[in-house]
């Protein structure tokens, strides 16, 4: 079916007027699961100067239910999130879920089904153990690995082989993200004594991935309030406007799959740029929050997202372009490498992108950021969700 432009009605512009997150840590022993999500939601409401009664619907996301051992936990969380008497949706698209959740919420506003929507994503990984949750035994499958690092490390090696990138690039990313995290009070890891030498001396876990190049396991939640033009007009702080958003999926494993630069990621970015009128992402985008759970994914995604030509992503990292004061800051928040409540990690990327264009990122603010990309991926590098947010309302 050809996409029929003529039939396409005008969408309601979507604004982000409230953002909240918890201070991410390894184990939030002082709160229940409800208390954790509530904290982020309450912060978002306060940022927007709204109350529970102002929310029309709730869209919640998280990674597999086994992490907390609660099946469809949104049922139990309805009360804590003020959803009683309202619509509540639960999204699960693996690691990309935080981004997908925000996009589902944005569509409720864009379609004019609702005026103001609370969207939230969380993971309370300390209720179980991420290694367990990610590696549940499956009969008839040879147990070879535990955790995600071993799954992704061979793809990193393939990237290094393909591009000839020097093996220090991964450590540069980790060193940058951990320093950025020092400027972000919500980040999980605050390694005040971090040095490049320490990163490079950390043990190889899944060679070529070192310990310091992997993400932590965190308890955390992130929430946003999305609203229409009327809601944005009442916003006490400058909103971030959604200029484009998209999801793309491809199969987990298939003949011809490019694990280094998946087609679904390229297509997703192209869709978002098209919606936002971006033709040269490297010049037109001021900050990027991308999902980098292992350091080498920064150069890989720089290429996949069109910021660098194929094989050239590592050169941007090596040249310092992605540093906080570089010309294309990547993960000014410290990224997934510094904070990883799995189900929330994608939404944190989206929220941090919005914070940048609202000028409310605090010590990790990128000067003059007007347009920022939030990116998430999940599964076997197969599910992608992205949005591009701007300081100005969209043009169309």
């Amino acid at each position, binding site marked *: 079916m050809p996409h029929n432009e003529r039939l396409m009605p005008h969408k309601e512009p979507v604004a982000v007027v409230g953002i909240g997150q918890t201070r991410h840590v390894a*184990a*939030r*022993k*002082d*709160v*229940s*699961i*409800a*208390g954790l999500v*509530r904290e982020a939601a309450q912060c978002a409401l306060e940022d927007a100067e709204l109350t*529970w009664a102002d929310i029309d619907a709730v869209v919640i996301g998280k990674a597999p239910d*086994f992490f907390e*051992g609660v099946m469809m936990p949104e049922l139990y969380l309805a*009360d*804590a*999130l*003020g959803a*009683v008497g309202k619509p509540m949706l639960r999204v699960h698209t693996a690691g990309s879920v935080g981004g997908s959740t925000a996009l589902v919420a944005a569509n409720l506003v864009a379609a004019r089904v609702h005026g103001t929507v609370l969207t939230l994503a969380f993971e309370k990984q*300390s*209720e*179980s*153990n991420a*290694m367990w949750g990610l*590696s*549940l*035994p*499956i*009969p*008839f499958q*040879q*147990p*070879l*690995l*535990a*955790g995600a690092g*071993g799954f992704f*490390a*061979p*793809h*990193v*090696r*393939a990237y290094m*082989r*393909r591009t000839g990138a020097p093996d220090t690039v991964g450590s540069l990313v980790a060193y940058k993200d951990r320093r950025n995290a020092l400027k972000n009070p919500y980040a999980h890891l605050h390694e005040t004594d971090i040095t490049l030498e320490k990163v490079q001396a950390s*043990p*190889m*876990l*899944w*060679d*070529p*991935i070192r310990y310091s190049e992997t993400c932590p396991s965190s308890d955390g939640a992130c929430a946003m309030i999305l609203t229409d033009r009327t809601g944005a007009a009442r916003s006490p702080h400058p909103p971030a406007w959604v200029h484009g958003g998209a999801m793309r999926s491809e*199969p*987990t*494993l*298939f*003949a*011809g*799959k490019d*694990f*280094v630069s998946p087609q679904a990621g390229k297509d997703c970015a192209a869709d978002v740029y098209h919606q936002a009128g971006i033709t040269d992402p490297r010049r037109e985008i001021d900050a990027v929050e991308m999902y980098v759970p292992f350091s080498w994914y920064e150069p890989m995604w720089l290429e996949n997202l069109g910021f660098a030509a194929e094989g050239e992503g590592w050169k941007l990292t090596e040249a310092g372009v992605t540093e906080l004061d570089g010309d294309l800051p990547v993960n000014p928040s410290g990224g997934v490498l510094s904070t990883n409540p799995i189900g929330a990690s994608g939404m944190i990327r989206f929220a941090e992108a919005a914070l940048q264009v609202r000028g409310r990122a605090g010590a990790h603010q990128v000067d003059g950021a007007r347009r920022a990309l939030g990116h998430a991926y999940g599964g076997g590098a197969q599910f992608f969700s992205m949005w591009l947010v701007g300081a100005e309302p969209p043009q169309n």
Partner: protein
Amino acid sequence: MPEVLTAPLVVEFPFTRSLGPVQSAFLTGLRARTVLGVRASDGRVVVPPTEYDPVTAEEIRELVEVGTTGTVTTWAWNARPRPGQPLGTPFAWALVTLDGADTALLHALDAPGAESVHSGMRVRIRWAEERTGAITDIACFEPYDSEPGRQPTAHSGEFADTDTETNADTDANADAGPVTGIIAPARLDYTYAPGRAQSRYLNALVDRRTVGERCPACRKVYVPPRGACPTCGVATDEQVEAGPNGTVTTFCIVNIKARNLDIEVPYVYAHIALDGADLALHARIGGIPYDQVRMGLRVAPVWTEGARFPDHYRPTGEPDADYDSYKELI
């Protein structure tokens, strides 16, 4: 058609749950044989206490103590208790509004038979002998004639470290301050069925043959097959033997030992494109020092007696494959 396989799958974990202030007070109270509720925005007393008002979503924190006797609001007779349920003998599930509360608590009611249970009947809590600060500190309810009417009384939510009503021999119930977390073990038993395509593959492995399946549309060969060609969305049904040898397309060296995994570290975890397959499978490489494994290495399976899978793959001694010959398979 050969045998379609199934196997037991157990998903089990002792979840560690932190409670937050309201739930902590409630469960600490149960340990001390006291039931706390929380006052909602409209004045109703919610038992068991929730952290947020079920109507207005406001955070509610005003704790009150309610009675340990109450009234059944509805019930259901459970003639065949299931694993994990509070009683092993036939019992009634009941929603009970404790005296002083405005909402009902779900628990078991120990009664002689269905005929002895009715809505409106009066019951009281039977406490568990050993109490740890969990909902199971209430062993169950039991029938008990008494007059309703107790009013809720204010409560700080704090409990003395010693339970004055108990003797030293049950003081295990009264130790160590507020309950801040629970351990919630959960075990579910499943029967896993990998389906037709994977069963065909697994059955062939018994004869040490690696049998993939070809997509009728794109002609790609999948090893192992998973039932559908993932790009065409159609069943793969033409069986094609692949391997036994193959090429290492990429790999990592695993240096951390996984729990429940009996493999000495370091070892090499590799993607291996079997000859004739269009997608690499994953396996361990042995028979070569780990730091000499490389992309393009030619390997062959090594079987051990009685194993379903090759134990690992070892170098064949052939020259390495040219990068261009396998780069599409990485």
